[in-house]
């Protein structure tokens, strides 16, 4: 850490950085592993947009405003549509009040669905990272194990019984899938 990255009057920033230099230096591989871990868990700030599967419901959540459905009838149809539009225009404040609770409910249920979706997304991400971590540790253990010699093989059990020998780490079931 540089002194210019600190604000401190007593002790001064220089004194703190000097004390930092006295600390035992962490192992570089441990620091690298940590930084990789931080980078892997660093999520970019999500945009304000909703999950795609909720977009359709989100567009329709406000039930107060809707255009009158069109009509295929040649003369009566347009007149009816116009009448419906005029009705909506005239009574919109009452429509708003009548549907206010419905809109609030729609928004609340959308929020709840978005939260469940977020939980699932975060859970899946955690599981992925955890699996990657476990596999990495298994590989490290494999690398640390001494190569097996024929003399080191455990004595075989009587025929008809399972040998009980663990499968070699290098051919783990997980990676064999």
């Amino acid at each position: 850490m540089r002194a210019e990255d600190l604000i401190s009057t007593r002790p001064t920033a220089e004194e703190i950085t000097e004390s930092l230099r006295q600390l035992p230096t962490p192992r570089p591989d441990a620091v690298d592993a940590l930084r990789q871990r931080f980078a892997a868990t660093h999520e970019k700030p999500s945009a304000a947009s909703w999950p795609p599967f909720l977009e359709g419901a989100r567009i329709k959540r406000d039930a107060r405003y809707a255009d009158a459905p069109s009509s295929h009838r040649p003369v009566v149809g347009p007149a009816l549509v116009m009448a419906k539009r005029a009705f909506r225009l005239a009574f919109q404040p009452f429509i708003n009040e009548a549907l206010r609770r419905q809109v609030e409910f729609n928004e609340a249920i959308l929020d709840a669905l978005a939260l469940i979706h977020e939980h699932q997304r975060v859970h899946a991400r955690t599981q992925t990272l955890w699996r990657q971590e476990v596999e990495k540790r298994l590989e490290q253990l494999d690398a640390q194990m001494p190569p097996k010699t024929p003399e080191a093989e455990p004595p075989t059990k009587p025929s008809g019984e399972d040998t009980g020998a663990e499968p070699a780490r290098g051919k783990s079931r997980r990676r064999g899938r």
Partner: protein
Amino acid sequence: MANVSLWNSKRGTASPSVGRVHQLVARLAWGDAVGNQVRYLRDLLRGWGFASEIYADQWDESCRDQVRPAHDYPREADADSALLIHHSFESRLVPIVARSKGRKALLYHNVTPARFFEGSDRHVARGCTVAREELRALRDHVTHAWAYSHFSAEELTAAGYRDASVLPFAVDWNAFNVPADPALRAQMEDGCANILFVGRTVPSKRLEDVLRVFTAYQRLYQPRSRLLVAGTLSNSAPYDASVLALREQLGPERVVFLGRVDSAQLSACFASATAYLSMSRHEGFGVPLLEAMYRGVPVVAYGAAAVPETMGGAGVTTLTDDPVEVAGLLAVLERDAALRARVVDAQRERLAPLDQETVARRVREALTPFLEGRAPAREKRGPDGPTVVCPGFETAPDAPMSRLARAVVDRLPGARLWTVRRQVMPLQLAPKEARSDGAAVWHFTPDEPASREGQDVPPSSSLETAVCCATGPVLFAGADEEVARRTVTRLHSRTVAGGVWETRRAPDEGVRLALGARLWELSPGADVDALATDVAQALEAGGRTHAR
């Protein structure tokens, strides 16, 4: 006499002195900084002989006896009443303020920028945006305005409040002298180094960074360590869920989310803490930092918003958020006893000017002109000249965009250049005009320190507020900057706005739509002077149209 007409107009009826000084707050909560401050001021005002009540729109059940409904205030107020309005979030109280008689003043606690909540809590994000609009709307109804930090006062000035100043933040130190919960303390004092964080779990507090720093500390320096987080955390909010998931992903041991704690439990946390860690990106003041100092716990805090000012040079303020480096600071405070003792001593000295009597005296001095009905002199504000908003001007004055911004200012009479300060300082000062080779340059404080390697200029709430309040032509240089994205749709309806963008950094669709034809591209190798002339002419023409 000129002041009297102003005083009697929109700002309420004049009265040379008042016997009633009330307070208005959106929500009176138990235990939060705003609620504590409101109660403190009420007691102080009553002690000075004023009748004083708290009016609120909402309140905690435990505060029911302390509060009156806000909608009663216009009926109960008269010309002799005075009202202190606390503003920290969306309140919907502006209409009540507008129709209330008597004099009014604003106490600004700061509003968390909406960007922290976008993508995680759109209701709160919207509330933050509305709160800033209310801040501008309140300006026409108050005679005085105070903030609790210079950082916040800067935003008041940017919003057009004249003579905005700082009111000392009162902390009830006696409230911290609660004996520690013995059971919790015994549990925590088991030989582990305890790192403490106290606060709400909201995105602006960056609990995820606290977790990262602690993980680095535990893995690299002190395996026998524990992280204590005192503050409500539930699994029902997206941000809280992401914090809990991150704990699983990082895998540190002994991370304890204590939830809401009482005073005795909080005392136990501080009593057993090795260090207090804050990585918050936004604080209007930062009471827990002072509480840690009072309890003799060394503080390591990220220097965003008003944090450097609250720390006042004491503790350790870091301008980098690199978890490994911040973890080193925690380690050095744990291992170097002499250094730790000096930090704790400096923290105690920091608190000396904040004792109750001194603060009460300074609060009275600050409020006296308002209480006595002395209105500040107000000059009539003329229309703004053209404004060129170039956040990166101070960071990279020789960059093509900065040169263009400067060239446009030189071509427009009365124009000013707004930029963001490169450095975070222990004491932020309200933006003031400075002359740079004849051009008027205003420097606004960034909300957080600039990253070491990043070219992006950090956002500035004050700059965004100032842009929203600008009445003259505005040029965004560049149009891809966050300030353009956030303010272009919130400008005055008659403001003429334009933007310049560099080829490698195109503005987003919203900015393109809002600026329309007044958007120019600054391509590599382009003639900056020729483009500046075109831009200046277009802005000048737009400004004239506006003036007619």
